[in-house]
């Protein structure tokens, strides 16, 4: 870790100079999702700021040195000049909801803030899903569908306060059940993926179970919510 701190002094400095902006912008984003108008749709919110050592590890992975996994490797290395364009999850907010149909209200509310110029989209929102039925739902909302190698599910937004700011905040929206899978997967596979084939298989089964659970929850809410 100290090696990375010595290797990237410029990134350390940029992080120190701008981290407050990330923290404040994250607070702004959290306030939005915690607002009264979304309280029927949002169950709870989690958030974190990436600390300097995790940021440097990510930079190191992106630069393809010292790690076998090179995710979205690009021709130019990550430096202090492009760090905040290349790593957009320094601030992260996770918005959890109960069932899939709530996403529509959350998505529309966020997009209207974007239309009002309150937030600026750094990139087009993406919906990660492996499930064809959910995929169709996301596409109907105008979300671009993407597939990750794992069974990862979540809708991703990268927000900025304005067109010139360094600060970004990555927003992930998913159901509580998807969060359960995500947390178990994360604790086993991050940052180093587990190699045991049996464990991999069990995580895959859990993903299908969570997928089925989500559909069942949606179905229950669709038929019985409002009947009580």
């Amino acid at each position: 870790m100290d090696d990375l701190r010595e290797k990237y002094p410029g990134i350390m400095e940029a992080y120190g100079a701008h981290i407050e902006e990330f923290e404040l912008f994250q607070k702004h984003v959290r306030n939005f999702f915690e607002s009264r108008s979304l309280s029927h749709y949002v169950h709870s919110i989690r958030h974190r700021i990436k600390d300097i050592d995790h940021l440097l590890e990510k930079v190191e992975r992106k630069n393809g040195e010292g790690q076998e996994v090179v995710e979205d490797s690009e021709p130019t290395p990550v430096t202090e000049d492009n760090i905040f364009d290349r790593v957009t999850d320094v601030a992260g907010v996770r918005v959890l909801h109960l069932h899939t149909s709530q996403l529509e209200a959350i998505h529309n509310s966020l997009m209207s803030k974007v239309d009002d110029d309150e937030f600026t989209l750094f990139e087009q929102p993406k919906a990660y899903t492996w499930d064809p039925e959910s995929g169709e739902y996301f596409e109907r909302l105008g979300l671009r569908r993407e597939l990750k190698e794992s069974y990862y599910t979540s809708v991703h937004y990268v927000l900025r306060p304005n067109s010139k700011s360094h600060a970004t905040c990555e927003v992930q929206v998913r159901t509580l059940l998807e969060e359960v899978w995500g947390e178990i997967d994360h604790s086993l596979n991050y940052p180093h993926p587990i190699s045991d084939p049996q464990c991999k298989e069990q995580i895959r089964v859990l993903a299908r179970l969570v997928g089925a659970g989500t559909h069942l929850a949606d179905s229950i809410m669709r038929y019985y919510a409002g009947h009580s």
Partner: protein
Amino acid sequence: MKLVSVFNNKGGVGKSTLSFHLAHALAEQGIKTLMVDLDPQSNLTLQCLSADYLEELWTTEEPFIEDFQAALDESEKDFSEFVATPRSVHCLLKPIEDGLFESYGLGAVYEVANDLGLIPGRLSLHTYEDKLAKSWSDAFMGEPQALRLLTGIRRLCEDAGEKQGYEVAILDTSPSLGMINRVIISTSTGVFVPCMPDMFSTFGLTNIGMALRSWKSQFDTMYSLLSDKKRESFPGQFVRFLGYTLYNARKYAGQNEYDLATAHYAYARKLPAVIRDKIPKDCYSHLPEETIGVPVGGTAITHSHSTLPAMAQKYRVPMWKVPDLPNLLTEDKGTVSGNKETYYTKREAYHAFARDLMSRLEGVEG
């Protein structure tokens, strides 16, 4: 519209008298000037209008300061009727402080002289400052009410510019580095510091330098977090430091370049170095390096005479107009007529000072 803050860390040194004469000098040179008295002590206001007028104004406003909406309802007037009579700056800011309207016009400005207006001060301005302090962190979240509070004073000045043709606003401030001056000074076009050649000036410049550094970093952070639309209600750049001026000093002709007593000169000589060491460079990067070390207006207004400012205050006109006043009292005629020429020369001195100050604002966007 250019907003010039006049700030001094030490009170009671004649800053309001200086603001008053500066504003008159600008107006006499055809620059439509608005004085805004943001010092609750209201000395600038009392230099322009009688204590009786001010008492009447403050009394009328009292219910509005307590509860603006209730008082407006009670008065059976609408807001534009209410502000058709000149109001104090706190009364004009009160609807924002109470979160009543999203936007509103300035209304009438008290006319002091040709091309010269005044928004009077008010002793109660501290409640606006309290609200500013409470809302400060919300402004970083882009909260609309907090942003309205932060831009309220600036908005009044801009309104005077857009609707009534004012070109420059002179903002007279209280001698504190607290929240309200953080906002007033940081969102002005320029700030200058009247200095007496004493130890307070060196410490005062050091303090304002440290404050400017920290305020700039706070506003940079805030600006980086505001949406492009919300950012527009703030000035494009952080306040420019326009320099200092030496004033209120006794003249000791021939002693040194500033004609000051040796002890005073020792302090005066330190000021350029204090500025170079303590004021952030990027606050005066628009000026040539040598300019910032020279007092604004050179020695034009350095030397004071004990009776001249007192007469200007008594008759509420600039010093150079005192000798020709038709209402000059017999008791004053003697002292004034003996020094007529001294009174008259102040006119060109303040005009020169005002011109130099404006030249330091050239090319700086409002």
